[in-house]
């Protein structure tokens, strides 16, 4: 652990929220969904709408609240998320928009999701570690990752960066990454995973074959070394010539996060490991 890992100025969760919120600046007027167990993306959506994407629509998955302005709570399904929302979706509403909206040529439909395994090509697993018939870990199920082939694009976030999460090839494809199968079957309008936000850095996907892409380093969080991130990743990352340092959260972002979005300080208590 380097000193920056324990930087008293901000929590790693706050840095990740800032990074994801800035990314959502690409999605003003788009529609974004976060799932369960999603404190980081939930806070990011709130921050994005305050600063970077005031016209973005976002869904607190499960519970169905649209454009909630409540303070951050642990669960997107908690009824307190309804506070300040503009609409409450039921599950039919959610499937309708997440399965087909982009294919009508409207706004982009964006998922911000996680997984128990994510591989070098951006495929994601929520079902089983090991052989499907004899799993060493039975996961929770594919749930909303079924929309990975209908969302315009997906951003991943993880609370951990280690070789258990970042594997060479997932054991079960809940959501397909940049593989030959995507090229063969998935409509080209759905462009798949674009960025990965982890406690160590930010990553994207770079072409390394006719139909495949592999995870590439974009920026490392302050104090994180390339050696450390490669050592904690279960495959060879693509290393570009220049690697940025992830920008620290600004004073404005931290003020909004601490006073408006997360007054209870949930982001500082998340069990984020790296």
């Amino acid at each position, binding site marked *: 652990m380097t000193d920056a890992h324990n930087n008293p100025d901000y929590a790693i969760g706050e840095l990740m929220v800032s990074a994801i919120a800035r990314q959502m600046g690409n999605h003003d007027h788009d529609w974004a969904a976060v799932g369960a167990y999603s*404190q980081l993306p939930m806070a990011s959506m709130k921050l994005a709408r305050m600063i970077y994407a005031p016209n973005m629509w976002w869904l607190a998955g*499960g519970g169905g609240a649209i454009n909630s302005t409540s303070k951050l709570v642990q669960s997107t*399904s908690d009824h*307190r998320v309804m506070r300040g929302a503009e609409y409450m979706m039921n599950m*039919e509403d959610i499937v309708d928009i997440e399965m087909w909206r982009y294919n009508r040529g409207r706004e982009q439909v964006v998922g911000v999701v996680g997984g128990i395994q994510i591989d070098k090509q951006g495929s994601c697993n929520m079902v089983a570690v090991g052989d499907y018939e004899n799993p060493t870990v039975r996961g*929770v199920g*594919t*749930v909303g990752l079924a929309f990975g*082939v209908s969302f315009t694009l997906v951003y991943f976030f993880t609370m951990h960066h280690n070789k258990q999460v970042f594997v060479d090839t997932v054991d079960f494809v809940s959501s397909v990454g940049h593989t030959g199968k995507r090229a063969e079957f998935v409509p080209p309008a759905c462009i798949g995973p674009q960025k990965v936000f982890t406690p160590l850095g930010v990553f994207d996907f770079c072409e390394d074959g006719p139909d495949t892409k592999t995870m590439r380093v974009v920026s490392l969080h302050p104090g994180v070394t390339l050696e450390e991130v490669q050592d904690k990743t279960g495959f060879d990352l693509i290393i570009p010539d220049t690697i940025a340092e992830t920008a620290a959260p600004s004073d404005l972002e931290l003020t909004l996060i601490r006073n408006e979005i997360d007054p209870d300080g949930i982001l500082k208590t998340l069990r984020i490991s790296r």
Partner: protein
Amino acid sequence: MDPIFLNSENRQSKLGTLEDAAAMIQNGSQLAFGGLHSHNGPMALIRQIIRQGTKDLHMIANVSAGMPADILIGAGCVDTVTVCYIGMEHLGFAPRFRKAAEEKRINIIDGDEIYYVLGLKAGAVGMPFVPYPPGHEARDNPIFEKTYKRTTDPYTGKEIIVSPAIQPDVAIIHVPRADIYGNVVHLGSVVADDLLAKASTHTIVTCDEIVTNDSIRADPRRTTIPGHYIDMVVQVPYGAHPLSCHGIYNHDEDHIKSYVKSDIGAYLDEYVFGVKDHFEYLEKFGIEHLMGLREQI
């Protein structure tokens, strides 16, 4: 008085008891439940189902199932489960589901949100299956899960993926308010409760409060499920505990955490088999604790 209120004197009440409701759920039946995660689950009825010793259920777990699915599996009531998500959200895996799955003590149908929601939609309208748009060939659920099939789209001649309609024998949901005729008022997320009521052969509602039919008629826009879908209404104050009932009380996170860590046999002995009814269950927590969970929106 308006004639309609005179007629209502002959209208049949659908009120029942937890025992009546549980008795509608036969061994081996397909049982679906509403709510999601730690919210709006019909927990008092689920405890009664466990208490009456129901076996071999095919559980249609809700779109994001937590403790309701886990405790039914842990109590040995479940033979087969249709999974979309079973876990405890930020509290980790659902331990009894995970263990039963890894030890292969339950059959798993590996669905997802599309399989579940559109399967219920097909079930509600009597369509035999759900045809998928292109793209789903690239993910593993339709490959590993054998209830997905392939067929030919007669309009294009192309092969497409299909999944089956879902028509549960019985759906059980917990809501804040209902009248004695089954008209339901949610005060928060409906999720798929409405769809479950449409797709299932029978639907049982447990509710925190019975409201008058006049109150329903005062603003029919608030009614979230019309009573004709509902077979029985059971008034169960705190009937979702330790889950939340949206609009009335929060989930009891400390208790759910202790459930996750508990020995399931000891937990069932204390909170299910060791109490004679729902009110004795509530008394274990005490008025101060239960009232402390209340929060409106």
